[in-house]
C-alpha cells in the first residue's frame, strides 16, 4: 500500500476542506464538469488589488478532487493570478512526471502517486482548471 494514492495527507486535506462553501461578492466564478465521471466543481473568487482576496469552492467529486480543491482553498487567497497559474502548471508537471517540480505548493506533493493513474489526473486538475477559468472571467469582468 506504500504507493497507494490515498495517502493520509490527501485524506486530511480533503477532510479539512479549506475554502469549501460559497462566496459573497465574487468577482469571478466558473463551473467545470468532468463528463467522464460526473465530477463537478464550482470555484468563486474575489480579486482585490490584483490579488485573490478570497476563494470558495463547491465540489461534487472524488477524494482527489476534494483534496485538490482544499489545497486551492488554503493557498490561493493572497496569491496573484500569476502565482495561481504557476501552481497549476507545477501540479500538471507533477502528474505528468511523478516528480515534484520546484515551486510546487507543498500540500500538492501528496498527489505524486496519482502520476501512475492517468485516468485520475483530471480529478486532481479540475479545481485548478476551474479557478483559472474563474480568474479569466474576473479579469474580463464577466464573473
Amino acid at each position: 500500500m506504500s504507493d497507494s494514492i490515498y495517502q493520509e495527507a490527501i485524506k486530511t486535506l480533503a477532510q479539512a476542506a479549506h475554502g469549501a462553501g460559497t462566496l459573497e461578492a465574487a468577482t469571478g466564478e466558473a463551473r467545470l464538469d468532468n463528463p467522464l465521471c460526473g465530477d463537478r466543481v464550482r470555484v468563486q473568487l474575489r480579486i482585490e488589488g490584483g490579488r485573490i482576496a478570497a476563494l470558495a469552492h463547491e465540489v461534487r467529486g472524488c477524494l482527489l478532487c476534494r483534496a485538490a480543491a482544499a489545497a486551492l482553498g488554503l493557498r490561493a487567497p493572497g496569491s496573484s493570478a500569476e502565482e495561481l497559474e504557476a501552481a497549476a502548471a507545477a501540479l500538471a508537471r507533477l502528474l505528468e512526471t511523478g516528480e515534484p517540480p520546484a515551486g510546487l505548493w507543498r500540500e500538492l506533493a501528496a498527489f505524486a502517486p496519482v502520476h501512475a493513474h492517468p485516468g485520475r489526473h483530471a480529478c486532481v486538475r479540475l479545481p485548478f482548471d476551474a479557478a483559472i477559468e474563474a480568474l479569466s472571467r474576473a479579469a474580463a469582468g464577466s464573473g
Partner: protein
Amino acid sequence: MIIVSDPIVVASPSDARAAFPLLAHDPGLHYLDNAATSQLCAAALDALVRHETTCRANVLRGTHRLAEAADAAYREARAAVARFLGGVSADEIVFTSGATASLNLLAHSLGATLAEGDEVLVSVAEHHSNLVPWFMLRERRGIVLRVLPVTAGGRIDLARLPQAMGPRLRLIALTHCSNVTGAVTALAPLVAAAKAAGALVALDGAQAVQHGPVDVRALGVDFYAFSGHKCFGPNGVGVLWGRREVLERMPPFLGGGGMVDRVELTGASWAAPPRRFEAGTPPIAQAVGLGAALDWMTELPWAAIRAREARLTRRLIDGLEPLPGVRILGPRDDAARAPIVSFDVEGVHPHDLVQVLDERDVAVRGGHHCARPLMAALGVEACTRASLALYNDEADVDALIEALAHALRLLR
C-alpha cells in the same frame, strides 16, 4: 512464432478460469468487471489466431484457396451464432462491429421505414447505446420517443406499459438485462402487448449473452443485438439478429462493397440480407473468434453455471448489505436477475472506491455506466458495479467484500 493449444474443455465450472489466458496468467486477479468486458476465452483466441495465420483472405468474392477457406470460416461463424440464438437461420445473422453498431443499424435501417409521428418505446433503464440512436432518429425523422420508467426497485415498470403505448407504436426497444442493476426484463407481457399492437420488439442483449445461449424465437422478439467482447469473444465484432421477413423489408444502412447487387452511376440496388447490411470487409477473424466462443459456450452446463452465478450474487448482496452506508441499487431479490450488482456508498466516490479495491487486486467499475437516465432515476450521479461471470468464485466475492470494508475505513 505462435503456438496455439487445443481448445480447453470446461468439464466443470471450476475449470473455467483455466480456459481464459488472461486469468490463467494472473491468478491473483479478482476480475469483477465483466459487464464492461468479459475476458477472452482460449477457444476464441485460438480460432482468431489460427484464422489469421492459416486462412486470412478477404471474403465473398475470392476463389483462390485462402479466400475459399476464409469464406467457409466466415460462413461457419454465422452458423455458430445462429445455433447460439436457438437455431435461427444463418441468413438472419448480421455481423457488425458491436452492439452499439447493431443498434445504430437498426435505428437507421428500420428507422428509415418509420414516418413522422410513429412511436418507438424505450425505457429509463437503457444503456446510452440504446438511447442515443433513437434520440438521433427523433431528430432525423420526427418520430415520437416514449420512455418506460423504472420502479423503486429498479426494474422496468411494466404497470406503465398501457399508458406508454401510443396508437402509433411501431417498435419497443429494450434492454434484455440492465448493465447497472442486473434486472432481467420480463418479456412475456411486453411481447404480448407488442404483438397485440402490431409493434416489433428489439432487445439489447449485450448483458444477457455472457450468461448463456438465448433462444430468440422462444422469446418471441424480432431483433436481438449483442457484442462479442461481452460473451468471451473478440473485440470489434457484434451481431444483429433479425427475423428474415423484417430484415427483407429494411433498406441498407452503410454503403460499400459487398452489400450491393448492381452499381451504376445513377444508383445501386441491394443484395439480400444479411449481406445487405454488411458493407465493406467485415470483421472476419473476429467473427470466426466469436463463433468459436459461442460454440464453446453452447457446450457448457448452463443450469449449473447459472445456479452458481445466482449463489455468488446472493453471497455478494448478503456481504454488501451490512456494510455501513452501502445501498444496493436495483433488485435485491434473486428473481430474474443477472449477476450484476451496483451500489452506492454514502460519502465515498465510486472512483476512489474502485482505486482502493484495485490496490487489493479487485477489479470493479465506478461511474455512470453509460446509463445516465437510470442513474438519475436511482438518485445517484455515479455508482460502483461488480459483475460476475462463469469464472468467478467465492474467493472473488469475498475479496471484494473484504477490500470494500477496508476501503470504507480508509476513505471515510
